[in-house]
């Protein structure tokens, strides 16, 4: 089986996800032995328009971005959303709470942005709100082990195995002291696992960057809030960091 051709693309993002590829250190050499990286603007000058797998970092914000992602979708056999901004919108979606005009005015005040296509933004969209996505690599930034897992799966032609259960499973396996018991508010119980509970393992509550499994307005969440003297408002504001737009996160 010939090596699949992989191309990396970035949209509105901080490029932290692509940096994780460089952070594979020596293993980058293994990576390029199993796939052919034909385009990766951040580290390569060469660029090819022929690729099998497109890996997308960043959210879609402007008509010019939408056009570009549609073109990429039409050329690729497999499209992978890479990182929170691409998978679920991430922090880029926080501004969706206000209208585009309001946001532009606040940010750019009286500057004349009409007709400037660079500023022609609409409400932030995750990649799957514009084109169909085949696989997701969640996280802000994604876990390097998971990146390796997905790329090896794609190179072997099998489906990547991404957890469908909450962070609590991994947190308990890591024998962490539950942050709720320390008076903190953690979104772990409703957030997708796969990060190996890295934030709670470092003493910081989960912020939900891998996306929610469960809508946060169910009765069980209300009971938890009551038990630990936390408010619904507080939970809502934490949910809006990466998951703005989901039910209960508006």
């Amino acid at each position, binding site marked *: 089986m010939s090596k699949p051709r992989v191309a990396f693309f970035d949209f509105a993002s901080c490029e932290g996800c692509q940096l994780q590829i460089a952070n594979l250190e020596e293993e980058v050499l293994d990576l390029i032995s199993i796939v052919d990286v034909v385009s990766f603007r951040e580290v390569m000058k060469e660029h090819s328009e022929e690729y099998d797998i497109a890996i997308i970092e960043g959210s879609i914000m402007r008509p010019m971005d939408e056009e570009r992602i549609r073109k990429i979708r039409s050329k690729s056999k497999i499209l992978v959303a890479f990182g929170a901004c691409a998978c679920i919108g991430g922090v880029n979606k926080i501004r969706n709470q206000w209208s585009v005009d309001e946001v532009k005015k606040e940010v750019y005040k009286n500057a004349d942005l009409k007709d400037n296509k660079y500023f022609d933004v609409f409400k932030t969209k995750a990649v799957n709100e514009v084109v169909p996505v085949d696989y997701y690599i969640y996280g802000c930034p994604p876990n390097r082990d998971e990146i390796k897992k997905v790329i090896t799966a794609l190179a072997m032609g099998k489906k990547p195995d991404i957890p469908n*259960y909450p962070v609590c*499973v991994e947190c308990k*396996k890591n*024998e962490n002291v539950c942050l709720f*018991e320390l008076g903190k508010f953690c979104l772990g119980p409703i957030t997708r696992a796969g990060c190996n509970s890295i934030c709670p393992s470092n003493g910081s509550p989960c912020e939900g960057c891998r996306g929610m499994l469960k809508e946060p307005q169910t009765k*069980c969440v209300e009971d938890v809030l009551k038990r630990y003297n936390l408010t619904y408002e507080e939970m809502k504001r934490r949910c809006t960091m990466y998951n703005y737009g989901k039910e209960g996160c508006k």
Partner: protein
Amino acid sequence: MMENKIVTFSENEMLNFVDRLLNEKKFDVFGVKSKGEKFVFDLLEDSDELRLDHDVTILPPKKFFLPQYENLMDYDLEKPFNVKDKIIDKKRIIIGIHPYDIIAIEQMDKVYLDDQKDDFYNIRRKNTILIASDIQNVSDRSFSSSMNTNIVDSGFDILLTKINDKYAVTIGSDKGKKIVEKYAKTDNATENEIKEIKKARDETSKKYKKEVKNNDWSQLLVANYDNSIWEERSDRCLECSSCTMVCPTCYCYDIKDEVSLDLKDGRRVRTWDGCLIRDFTKVAGGEVFRDDIKERYRHRFFRKGNYLYNRYGFIACVGCGRCATACLPDIADPCDLINELSVFGGKGKDDKFFIKKESKIGETGTIHVPRSATIKRIEKLTSNETLFELELDDKKPLNHEPGQFVEVSVFGFGEAPFGISSPPSDKPIFEIVVRKVGDVTSQLFKMKKGDKIGIRGPLGNGFDMKKFEKKNLLMASGGTGMIPMRSVIKHVLSDENRPKFKNITILYGCKQPCEVLFADEIDEWKKVPNVNCIMTVDQCADGECWAGEVGLITALFPKIKLDRYDSKDTESIIIGPPVMYKYVIKCLQTLGISDENIWVSLERRMKCGVGKCGHCQINGIYCCKEGPVFNYNKIKDLPEAFE
């Protein structure tokens, strides 16, 4: 029973004892340490880290014998079949295990060291010395005193009890005796000091804040299977499975294949899994057998109080309180639940959801490690199904019964169960039929003659063909049910065996003609004396060539000539999709065939194949151990069997 010898040493000497153990390089010493405000078992660096006054640890000692994440075997993806099991372990001592955890370890021993011994668990157990300690402080949610698990007199190598400013040291085994003699300076315990032990334990018993009011969990649970309490409580469940992770008697696991980034090799790993997770029962085709959270929530309590009670004779809960603390919506506490149910009361039949069955041991060699087989022949049967003829490389026959299955390994992709489609034989060759649904099966479809795969088996409970001799046989197959049924049919219809059975009826229904399997072979079957073979399809497109019936399989029953049948002398086998059973069984009953003469084969997510990982449970039974072949009479009252 021999009385345990009891000696004493001062608190200071206890610390010296621990320090001497720490100096020994040949074993690792783990003890209870603080982690923030909580406690954990971890490597000790100094004796003053030891906290024998702890109330409960975050994770129980099960993590030493069944690690959260464990490499079972390495495999080479470049060589055809190169597998190495990873049974390596270093000796260890664990200090500070509370009595309830000792009992939990004993329970796990019964599970893991049964007739299909887990070699990985076994070596860890053998390499470990358990130094227990009597409880000094009790956690808010612990109810071990009312579970009678707060005091033990066996199961440990050494037991430490704090009595005033000294420690009483109860020797529980030869291993313990040797350790104490080598590393500690002790005095014999006086009569008074022995009395102090009881006094210390009594003092601690007073500290319990929780008490379970009913110790007869099994019958209480059975009586309340349909109580609304399950739905009310599970409504608040976050499905986070924290309860199973921290539980000392929960031990379900999943097995996955991991591959190195250079694709040259990989490993098969085992990791904790939990029955509260929705995907726990999901099969490659996408079906989830315990979809409703109410069912999963209820399942955990039944497993602890009824299913495992039936199987091993103990309540699989030691009252440690870890799940109660871990559960954020506070619905996991068995003490609360049992007390609530006790208000409803009731006494059900203990083994209503259980079948007692002797298991056959099919696994040879190290548990979970497959042996190699070569693909001898590949035959495409339909667009979705392909037959593989396999030969075991050690040239030993599979020795299977019809109805049994094998676990097929494609390293790097995983392992999947397949019903054996060929009849029993004394050759090392057998056949399976693969339907392309997931990763393993997709990869099998890409393989060629001469490629190697891994085989474990034969596994499960098959058809006892001796029981069917001198009887009429009525075999109804739906769709892919013909795959395992073929194993029975070819066995029965062989020249050697045909005379042993009376009249044979074969009914076979598929959705469409293009899905019919083994059409050529079926033509041959029709030619065998006293064999009545009728086929049907649900629908047939115009112009499609089909000589058989059109309609559901149930419509075939009236066509069976009743005068050929003495229903009292007939055994019937049904294998097909879940929806088929209900209707076909009715037809059989109408024919006068009694429930105890009806046999079914059920399918669940079978992972380990040896009744340990927990994924294939149907109420209290394992589909891979008591099944997949079941007597309908025994299984008809199991609510989860035919949903």
